[in-house]
């Protein structure tokens, strides 16, 4: 056994060890405070007693040493030093065992090593089964995993038989595995165990993402939690992972936008990581099952390769886009990440309601220029190939807002409170709002109803109209060219921007905290400001969309700028976003669909009716069984009665498909922080070594030694006193 302690139960008492220095300090302080005095008998005293004085000094040093050592030992005992000793457990052991088995059920555990049948979870379950078989009926065990079913109230939480049954039912799911969180959770459960021995077993594949690097504070917190338990549990990390893995994967697959129109092509981008040495692989992209592209992957190249292509959809609707790795040797240990899926909403028509003060104002109103730019009329014989369908209105209507994705306010008309509420709700649900503040904008109304002290639709309060001197004009400056909309100005020279005259505009107060000024006028006030309200985006122009305020509508830049603006505001987000494997799919139901029948088609083609099930919420449908990757289609409504289909994609979490293992440094850090004796690693494929850490307390011995030393000091003092006891002289005659 190590004579030095491995741990201290009261490490916060370390400073008390300074008490051991107290005798020496007092001695030194006392010495320093010595009084000076002339003494007549010193010389003769020294002459007679030189040898004895040396002995007295030695004796003093000895006493201080003994006293210091005694104090040190007493304080050391208070620190609670202990050595941990590992003892083999046998069935004959009289100690009761309590086990908490933590399972990593993340989808990286679905990796199937080439050398054995079944995935890593199966391997983990086999090892846990062997462990449970070793237990006696009086022992306790509990499984902790995201998929574990909570025991009913009153049930024995650590019932061994129920734990065995739960082990057999254990499945993948529950999202990424966080090792530290799992340890924390397990410590909490072990605190409930009243057994002699507490053991935590964590069955994991040691995937790198499960242990974020340098989580020192979290580790210290866990160490303190462990130390607070008596008996402190041992933690065994059961390595169920494969040291060498073969896995090629699509790391990422995305499109420029999840909503697009039939009028333009959309870009797709894939990042592919083939397994080292894999050959003959192709990246194949399909839209609704039809192959639209196939790119071979070179044998040699970077570990992660980026492949991009574009596609223009010819018809509106929901497009199921999949990218998959195909070819000989495409099969690997983790098939879930060989394909990734996207659902793209394709539009052939996008209504753009434009609200202005007086819809029939003609060319003087900004709405006219917006209408022209969004839907250019080249003549009856040449209908424009754009999806925008502008419509100029005098007020907001709920019907058109429910069909639209974007709303344009040309000027800020005096909107009724009910309309304002409609617009606000429209934006908060993800709609886009484009606002032009023209000369007819009522400042007081805008600030009162739309700015609302920073809580409303406007990004800043309007202050006053700023007009350039006669014959002069302001120009756009500080244009954010990195913004996807304003990148249209890229390549435009400063001289051209100088020709873009801004004759009058609104000056604004300070913008909202999270608002971004995209451009300013040369007068110094913000011209274009972007901000968000809940899920919706708002872009505000401090000028009207008419030539009276600015030359912009007359320039060739206006059309592409406006088209980008509308696309950015309307097509930025899709409501049809799926989830990662193991996550939850959510579908919002419309008012008329509350009692409708809902039928779900799973990726493997099976269908399930989920209407009126417990999983149907009041305002939406939630589906959690998403272990399969692919497309999930929710058919809402009767067959011939306004049936609506929502298709969502489920993909493997990219982090889960990264089978890189925890590096040795992180494991070493984990071991160091939690205690090398407390944390063990097991890679034993046949079973787990059954042992227990027993703490050997040092403090009684230290205390005893300290008290003995104090006794020793007393004896020494007595001894010294008796040794110098004078032979009582007769004194003076």
């Amino acid at each position, binding site marked *: 056994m190590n004579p030095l302690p491995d741990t201290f139960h009261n490490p916060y008492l370390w400073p008390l060890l300074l008490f051991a220095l107290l005798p020496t300090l007092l001695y030194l302080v006392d010495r320093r405070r010595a009084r000076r005095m002339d003494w007549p008998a010193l010389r003769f005293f020294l002459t*007679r007693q030189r040898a004895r004085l040396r002995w007295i000094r030695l004796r003093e040093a000895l006493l201080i040493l003994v006293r210091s050592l005694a104090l040190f030992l007493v304080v050391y005992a208070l620190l609670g030093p202990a050595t941990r000793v590992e003892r083999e457990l046998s069935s004959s052991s009289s100690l009761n065992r309590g086990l908490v088995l933590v399972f990593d059920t993340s989808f990286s555990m679905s990796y199937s090593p080439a050398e054995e049948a079944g995935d890593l979870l199966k391997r983990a379950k086999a090892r846990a089964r062997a462990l449970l078989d070793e237990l006696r009926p009086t022992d306790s065990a509990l499984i902790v995993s995201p998929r574990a079913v909570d025991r009913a109230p009153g049930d024995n939480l650590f019932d061994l038989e129920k734990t065995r049954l739960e082990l057999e039912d254990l499945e993948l799911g529950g999202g990424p595995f966080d090792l530290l969180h799992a340890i924390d959770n397990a410590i909490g459960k072990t605190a409930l165990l009243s057994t002699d021995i507490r053991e935590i077993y964590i069955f994991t594949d040691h995937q790198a993402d499960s242990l974020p690097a340098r989580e020192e504070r979290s580790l210290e917190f866990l160490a303190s939690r462990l130390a607070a338990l008596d008996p402190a549990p041992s933690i065994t990390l059961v390595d169920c992972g494969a040291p060498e893995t073969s896995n090629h994967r699509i790391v990422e697959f995305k499109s420029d936008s999840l909503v697009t129109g039939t009028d333009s092509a959309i870009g797709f981008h894939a990042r592919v990581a083939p397994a080292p040495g894999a050959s003959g692989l192709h990246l194949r992209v399909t839209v609704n099952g039809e192959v639209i592209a196939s790119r071979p992957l070179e044998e040699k190249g970077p570990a992660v390769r980026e492949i991009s292509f574009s596609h223009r959809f010819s018809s509106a609707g929901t497009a199921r886009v999949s990218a998959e790795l195909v070819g000989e040797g495409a099969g690997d240990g983790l098939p879930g990440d060989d394909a990734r899926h996207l659902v793209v909403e394709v539009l052939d028509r996008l209504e753009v309601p434009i609200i202005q003060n007086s819809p029939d104002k003609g060319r003087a109103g900004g709405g006219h220029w917006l209408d022209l730019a969004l839907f250019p009329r080249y003549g009856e014989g040449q209908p424009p190939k754009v999806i925008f369908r502008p419509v100029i209105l005098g007020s907001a209507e709920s019907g058109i807002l429910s069909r639209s994705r974007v709303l344009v306010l040309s000027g800020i008309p005096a909107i009724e409170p009910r309309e304002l509420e409609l617009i606000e709700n429209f934006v908060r649900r993800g709609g886009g709002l484009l606002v032009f503040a023209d000369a007819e904008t009522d400042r007081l109304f805008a600030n009162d109803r739309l700015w609302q002290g920073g809580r409303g639709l406007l990004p800043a309060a309007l202050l006053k109209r700023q007009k350039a001197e006669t014959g002069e004009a302001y120009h756009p400056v500080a244009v954010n060219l990195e913004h996807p909309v304003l990148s249209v100005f890229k390549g435009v020279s400063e001289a051209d921007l100088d020709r873009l005259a801004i004759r009058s505009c609104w000056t604004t107060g300070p913008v909202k905290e999270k608002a971004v000024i995209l451009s300013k006028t040369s007068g110094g006030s913000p011209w274009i400001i972007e901000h968000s309200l809940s899920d919706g985006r708002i872009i505000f122009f401090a000028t009207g969309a008419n030539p009276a305020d600015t030359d912009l509508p007359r320039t060739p830049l206006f059309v592409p700028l406006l088209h980008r603006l509308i696309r950015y505001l309307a097509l930025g987000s899709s409501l049809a976003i799926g989830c990662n494997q193991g996550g939850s799919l959510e579908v919002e139901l419309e008012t008329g669909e509350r009692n409708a029948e809902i039928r779900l088609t799973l990726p493997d083609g099976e269908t399930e009716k989920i209407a009126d099930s417990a999983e149907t919420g009041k305002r939406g449908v939630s589906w959690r069984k998403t272990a399969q990757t692919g497309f999930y289609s929710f058919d809402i409504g009767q067959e011939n009665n306004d049936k609506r289909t929502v298709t969502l994609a489920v993909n493997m979490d990219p982090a889960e498909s990264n089978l890189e293992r925890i590096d040795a440094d992180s494991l070493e850090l984990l071991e160091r922080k939690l205690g090398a004796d407390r944390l063990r690693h097991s890679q034993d494929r046949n079973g787990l070594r059954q042992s227990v850490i027993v703490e050997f307390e040092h403090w009684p011995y230290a205390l005893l030694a300290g008290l003995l030393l104090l006794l020793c000091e007393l004896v020494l003092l007595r001894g010294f006193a008796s040794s110098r006891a004078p032979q009582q002289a007769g*004194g003076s005659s």
Partner: protein
Amino acid sequence: MTELRDFLDPGSVAQLERLQVVARKIAAGFLRGLHRSSARGSSIEYAEHRPYVPGDDLKHLDWRSYARTDRFYLKQFEDETNLRATLVLDTSASMSFSSGEITKLRYASCLAAAMAYLLLGQRDAVGLALAGESLEQHIPPRASAENLAGIYGAMEKARAEGRTDLSKVLSQLAERVDPGSLTILISDLLDDEQKVLSGISQLRQRGSEVIVLQVLDPCEKELPFNSWMVLRDIEDPSIEMRLDARQLAELYRENFIEHQEAIRKGCSAAEVDYLCLDTSAPFANTLGRFLHLRSRQR
């Protein structure tokens, strides 16, 4: 009488400047006691006659004058001294120590002055030797008032300085004293006891009676401190020691007692009277003890 003795505590005496006055005051209480036992001189040199007064010893009546004049006259002689006493006063630096109001030297001087006064009153010859590192001043014993004044003057001027070397001083003195004389050594004796006893022994061999009066400050007998001290030797400032008085008090006291015991035994062996005096003790006690010693001698 009691009032006078109270007045003569060492603290009060220390405030009196002239030794002559001090000596008279100290000795005043003892004059009557000495009256009947005054020493008789053996000189035959005629000095004068004086009328008889009751109480005079009839032995000294001049019967011839009575026969001639029918009156009683006493015949008086020039010198009636029969003892030659030398007071040896230690003036080493250690005698300057005082924990109270009076230094050991002042105490010893007062005592010596009183003794000289008393001795002369008994018509004994009194001398003085000042003992520093060597015999620094020696006034031979004479039974005259002038000599006594000289002794007082020498003691007034004496300063406590230099190291003690009693062995050397006593050795030098031994060459000068007469056989049958009395030597009174007044010192703190803070020196090697063997050397001190060796010096005394030489005096004894010379045939002188010796009385040793050890004058000590009460503090010297023990280390009455409760803290660390840095002690510096008075006689040799280069000797310095930092010590815990609480730890060393016992050893110091033992050591002091051993020293005193050695001196006492040595004196006893050499048939020397030894008396240890405390500077806090009243002079009356001290002088009383001295006279007790003297009466024992006679």
